[in-house]
């Protein structure tokens, strides 16, 4: 490509005057320096939460599922809610890395590394819930279909719960591969800059002897494309399969055809909110405001608004069809959500998920960091309540009025949930200390076109009259390959 040009109407993706070296310096600074007090405080709190979670899980394994708040009617509650919530959060990373790569969205370069890491940690947290929910956790390997010594005992292949194992497992594997492949050139950069022997050895070992020659770059770029192509359907399939855990049944409130795409939209919605929560703090603490700009935050807020509206429309569709179908159970179920004992959960969901994201219609609010941070937390509260409403509120009001009941969580429910927060943030703190939170090589890739200081060069191209411009680029063989050959 001979002509580096991007319209000046596009906001720069990298602010300030930067060259390649400066980019490396800015991003690896936190890795090579000593972490601040805040980092230690944060890490210790996270580890403490994790340990509390471990204790809660130990308690549950020792005494059994009975220590949770689940009962005969509401036999699925917090654990599955938290599972779906975490898997949902784990959707943004792969959407950013895969789908936005295929759509050639340049702004992904600033946020993809951290978002992918977040995805992986979120899926790890999600995985805990089904594992410990099986009760006899020592038999958990039964979920894997393999030729076994138990005779003709196989998992039920017709069960969406088994599809979940495959869907989440595949998603996790591909996400890790994608993330790691992107890390390799950056790990090599760290290796080359390392001052101590241990660092040099470790970063060298994990960068697989990357040399940075043309052939390697060509191969890794090809690998990114292949992985993006594989990961794209996964973004849709994982939460679709998760939604089928509910939608394949015939329980009012669960059995509805919109569930798969609606769950996916909700997942992206909450995932982006979590990315905002993390990155707004990260960019501030690590001084990366020039790389994760207001433009990035605005772009993500737009995605949040879009997916939030999709989710809102899905709610409308559910309510409409509950009425339109004339189905007694379905209609009752939805009315019970609004007006039943758990009405406050439903209203919480509507406020957080439907009303709040609509604020992002205003550009001023989309670019307001404090507001965005606040909203990102509100949205994740809303998305938690969405799953809670779907799961618990559909179950506690079942077919037999005599078994209608209420659900209240116990300390063990909460402890387990808090523990996964501990796991998530522990991982994130370690990640932000030892690995570059922004993909250095990808920033360099877009720097010459989208960097603020390079955008000055575009002015002369911009003022050129169109026919002259076409003439020029066709001389530079942009167009000539196409003309004639198309006919």
């Amino acid at each position, binding site marked *: 490509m001979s002509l580096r040009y991007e319209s000046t*109407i596009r906001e720069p993706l990298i602010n300030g005057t930067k060259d390649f070296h400066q980019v490396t310096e800015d991003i690896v600074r936190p890795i090579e320096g000593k972490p601040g007090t805040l980092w230690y405080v944060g890490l210790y709190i996270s580890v403490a939460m994790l340990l509390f979670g471990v204790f809660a899980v130990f308690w549950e394994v020792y005494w059994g599922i009975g220590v949770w708040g689940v009962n005969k009617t509401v036999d699925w509650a917090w654990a599955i809610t938290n599972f779906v919530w975490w898997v949902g959060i784990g959707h943004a990373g792969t959407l950013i890395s895969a789908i936005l790569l295929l759509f050639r969205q340049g702004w992904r370069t600033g946020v993809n590394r951290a978002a992918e890491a977040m995805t992986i940690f979120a899926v790890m947290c999600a995985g805990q819930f089904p594992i410990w929910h099986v009760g006899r956790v020592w038999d958990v390997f039964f979920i894997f279909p393999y030729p076994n010594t138990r005779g003709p005992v196989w998992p039920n292949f017709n069960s969406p719960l088994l599809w979940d194992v495959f869907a989440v497992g595949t998603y996790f594997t591909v996400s890790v591969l994608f993330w790691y492949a992107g890390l390799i050139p950056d790990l090599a950069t760290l290796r080359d800059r390392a001052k101590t022997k241990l660092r040099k050895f470790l970063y060298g070992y994990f960068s697989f002897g990357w040399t940075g020659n043309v052939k390697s770059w060509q191969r890794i770029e090809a690998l990114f494309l292949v992985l993006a192509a594989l990961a794209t359907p996964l973004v849709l399939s994982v939460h679709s399969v998760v939604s089928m855990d509910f939608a394949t049944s015939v329980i009012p409130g669960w059995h509805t055809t919109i569930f798969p795409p609606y769950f996916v939209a909700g997942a992206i919605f909450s995932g982006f909110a979590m990315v905002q929560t993390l990155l707004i703090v990260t960019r501030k603490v690590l001084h990366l405001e020039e790389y994760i700009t207001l433009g990035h935050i605005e772009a993500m807020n737009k995605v949040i608004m879009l997916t939030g509206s999709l989710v809102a429309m899905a709610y409308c569709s559910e309510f409409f069809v509950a009425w339109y179908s004339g189905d007694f159970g379905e209609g009752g179920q939805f009315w019970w959500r609004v007006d039943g004992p758990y009405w406050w959960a439903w209203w919480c969901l509507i406020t957080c998920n439907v009303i709040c994201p609509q604020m992002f219609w205003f550009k001023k609010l989309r670019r307001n960091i404090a507001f965005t941070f606040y909203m990102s937390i509100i949205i994740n509260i809303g998305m938690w309540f969405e799953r809670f409403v779907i799961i618990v509120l559909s179950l506690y009001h079942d077919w037999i009025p005599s078994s209608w009941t209420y659900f209240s969580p116990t300390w063990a429910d909460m402890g387990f949930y808090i523990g996964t927060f501990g796991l998530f943030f522990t991982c994130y703190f370690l990640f932000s200390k030892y690995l570059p939170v922004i993909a250095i090589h990808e920033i360099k890739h877009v720097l010459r076109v989208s960097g603020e200081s390079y955008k000055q060069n575009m002015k002369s191209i911009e003022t050129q009259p169109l026919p002259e411009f076409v003439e020029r680029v066709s001389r530079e063989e942009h167009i000539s390959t196409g003309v004639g050959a198309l006919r």
Partner: protein
Amino acid sequence: MKEQFVMPAKLRTISIVLLAIGILALIIGIFALNGPVSGTRFWIVLFFNAIFFLFMTLGALIVLCAATLAQGSWHIAYRRVIEAIFMAMPVFAIIAFIIMMCLVWGDKSAIYAWADKSLVAHSKLLQKKSAFLNPTFYTILAVIMLGLWTYFGYHIRKLSLKEDLSTAGTTKIFWKTYRVAAIFVAFYYVSNAVSTWQWIMSIDVNWYSTLFMWYIWASLFVSSIAVITLFVILLRNLGYLEWITYEHLHDMGKFMFAFSIFWMYLWFAQYLLIWYGNIPEETTYFTIRAWGSYHTLFYINLIINFCAPFLILMTRDSKRNYTIVAYMAILVFIGHYLDFYLKFMPGPLKNNWHIGWYEIGITLGFIGLMILVVTRNLSKAPLFLKNHPYMKEAIIHQS
């Protein structure tokens, strides 16, 4: 750069002949297709074609607005083609509106059971639904939706033409278009649900599916991209749009590929959940389609709309091959035409469906009309956008 499109005489003749065939089929239909079954066939074929072609033009507006909101520049190279397609919307909206009014107010048809007062009187379910499904409400909503879709189309086109005349380097109109596109998408978003429920889902009046609205959307989005692709290739063949290269072709191929898969995803999500749940109210929809006389069409639909684009458009080379992309666009168009056919016919016609002189004649008529109106719109404005901030990006676009 050739600025002005002049409609070739040959194309004009072809489109007029096609249109004449359509009108001829309509006239013969009026006389030949009477009685309970044939009368229904007469109306449903007209209705189905009107909606399908209306949705193609509407789809072009959605593609444009979505790309505008995503700040994409790939479509700017042939934005005038997209504009010409959605500017055909008023013609199809009027046709669709006339037919729809005949369906709900004239009691000639058995297409909407809920519009038949004697049927409603005997059905508790229909009475319950009558708050939403009644001729008055149907008419009001149709006027609002068709009117506003057309209005937004006009508005965006007007802004685009105004931009050509403004001074170079201005971004005011760019941002204005951006805002209008956002409002349109928000409105479309709600009207998509309402129109698909009221116009299409209510044909099978006892059946319901929450996903249906998005499933229709996926169908119209991918087939609109196919229509845009066909017109771009047509113009390219006539020696216009010389700045369009393989890179642009590649992108159109990608979109057809991606959204064919997306369509399949939604199709499968709906089918799987209904099959798994096995609730009679829901399965009736598929019983006649998958196990009734529509059996063959049902599977052809999946092959054309998913297997073919998926396998053929997967490689880079095929997306950069003019012939393959052109034929795939035609195939995708036919495929979604068939998909719409399967949505409309089984309800009113049951097993008495045809693909005969009448169906083919009417469809050819609509195709002729489409070519005629779109090419006329193309000749009304320059083929490139003189002052659009993304025009230069679009020219050097690399897929």
